[in-house]
């Protein structure tokens, strides 16, 4: 999360004063409904919701990096219910196999024939929890599915449902027994968003809401209610709304000057003396896609440099690598990136 984003919540008031056209107006209403529904369950995290919507509207994948307990699973769960999408969660562990995610052929003893058992990847929203705990073979299988949006099981190709969005998480503090995602695989995530702790005010609200949760009677016993229990099953929008939003994103105007900004920044990362690895062309593509979606979410039908600067850290930072000299001098990826963004000649 950028400094600005962490400092204050997203202002739901739109960036421009004039009335948007009818098409955009409907999309904005849809987005507002989603945000309102999410806000009934999750306190704060407006920027994460915005990043989730950007990923959803652009078909990109999102990697969330944060310590446990920041409502990552809850967010994805409530988002899927709000838009009436299928949701699956896989906890990645060291002994997970590719077939546990993709699926496999099993022998049907009644018919004595093999039949395909599809794995949890066949869903709309897949939460890959702690992706860096799985072996590289499993990570590779998932990332291949993310890229190609199809899976091969027993020699047969299966297309993944549309939309297909992977939201992976990784814990930045417990690195023992993990397999760090290599740069080539990180590049397949459109954005890597770093979650931060809620503000004290948000934290108070979380505690107040949690204190109001009761218990749920089940049979002869009862269990304590969680935030998952208060999710409304009534969707706030449908697949059609989502498709309309995706179409609207495609119509957001991107100026030549904006493309020049992106090319300049991407090239600076490639020629920077403190960087060993700069941005790939995919970074530039992701910047434009994400900026378009952000512009739409903010009620604009054109992108402005503000979109670029707000998303730069999430889109670029996981795609660059500092060289030895930079590390020895105590530079961080974020500081080098800010230097690149603020450079004016």
């Amino acid at each position, binding site marked *: 999360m950028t*400094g600005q984003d962490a400092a204050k919540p997203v202002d739901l008031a739109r960036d421009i004063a004039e009335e948007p056209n009818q098409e955009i107006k409907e999309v904005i209403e849809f987005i507002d409904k989603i945000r309102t529904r999410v806000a009934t369950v999750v306190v704060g995290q407006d920027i994460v919701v915005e990043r989730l919507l950007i990923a959803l509207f652009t078909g990109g994948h999102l990697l969330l990096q944060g310590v446990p307990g920041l409502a990552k699973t809850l967010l994805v769960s409530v988002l899927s219910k709000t838009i009436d999408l299928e949701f699956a969660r896989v906890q990645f562990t060291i002994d997970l196999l590719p077939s546990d995610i993709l699926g496999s052929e099993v022998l049907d003893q009644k018919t004595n024939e093999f039949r395909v058992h599809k794995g949890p990847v066949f869903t709309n929203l897949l939460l890959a929890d702690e992706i860096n705990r799985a072996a590289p073979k499993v990570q590779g299988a998932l990332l291949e599915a993310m890229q190609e949006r199809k899976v091969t099981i027993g020699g047969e190709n299966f297309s993944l449902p549309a939309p297909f969005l992977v939201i992976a998480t990784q814990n930045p503090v417990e690195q023992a027994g993990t397999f760090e995602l290599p740069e080539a695989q990180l590049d397949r995530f459109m954005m890597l968003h770093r979650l931060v702790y809620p503000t004290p005010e948000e934290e108070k609200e979380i505690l107040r809401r949690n204190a109001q949760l009761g218990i749920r009677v089940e049979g002869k016993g009862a269990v304590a209610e969680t935030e998952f229990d208060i999710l409304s099953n009534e969707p706030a929008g449908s697949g059609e709304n989502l498709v309309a939003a995706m179409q609207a994103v495609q119509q957001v105007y991107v100026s030549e*000057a904006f493309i020049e*900004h992106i090319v*300049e920044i991407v090239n600076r990362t490639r020629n920077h003396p403190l960087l060993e690895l700069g941005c790939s062309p995919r970074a530039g593509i992701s910047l434009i896609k994400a900026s378009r979606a952000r512009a739409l979410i903010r009620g604009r039908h054109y992108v402005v440099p503000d979109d670029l*600067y*707000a998303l730069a850290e999430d889109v670029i930072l996981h795609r660059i690598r500092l060289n030895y000299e930079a590390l020895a001098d105590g530079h961080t990826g974020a500081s080098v990136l800010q230097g690149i*963004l*603020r450079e004016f000649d």
Partner: protein
Amino acid sequence: MIRIPFIFFLLLILYPVGFPPAVAIAGGVNSATASIALSGNPQESEPHLQENTDLSTTVGFPLRLLQTKIVGSRLIAKPYTDRKVPVMVRIIETFPHGSDFRYDIEFRGFEPGRFNIIDHLKRNDDSELVSDPLWVNVEPILAAEKVRPIPLPQTESKFRSYYVPILFVSGIIWMAGLLAILFYGRGTLKKASVITKVTTPAEKMRPLVDAAIAGKLTAAQQAELERILSEFWSAKLNLGHLPADQLRTTLREHPEATQMLEQLDFWLHRPAGEAAQPVDVNALLKPYQDQSKTTASE
């Protein structure tokens, strides 16, 4: 695989010099050692001494007397202060033996002759040492006429005669290098600081503003001008510490800067023909043209 022969070789080299007595006894360092230690049992070394039989060794080879009982208070080796003394005696280890002591003694003779080990020991409490002599015959290996080894030829190295001039020249080169780094390096830094001073946002902006007013800006230059304008306002409002995204947000909240950004949005980022009236680039950039001129003249 290479390590095993290497270790064996190392053992061979080290063997005669400094191994514990038990090893030396078993291997037999030389005939002199063997004559004392071949008995193997420490108790059996005592009769040798009591019989007062001369022990023998050869020049330079150590002789070890293990578990040698000598009556009286504790003994120590006399300090080896006189380099002309042709023998060296060391007490390796001392063991109590009732009111007396037993010793592991190492003797080494540097010249042929007959020497009394007791002459090279003294009481730890400085009392008088009265004991039977313990004679050792140090026999030469060389032939009788070869009293001393053949002296090594001492030829003077050719390099030695040039050593001082080489040192002197190296010192001059080193000093010259140091001075070059100090003065040339500083000069380069000064030049760099001059360049940095020139490229302030206002200075950098000037040719672009002129070109924009003349309508000759490419898309890349338009983008560059937009970045420089943003940095110009950052410098003006002292916002250099802010990240890029926060800077934009802050400028959007500033009454003057936000007008400039909105006009830039209309000019550069919105689809053509959306503005109620076309953006007057001259009016938009005129203040910045003047500003850059002012800064340049300063």
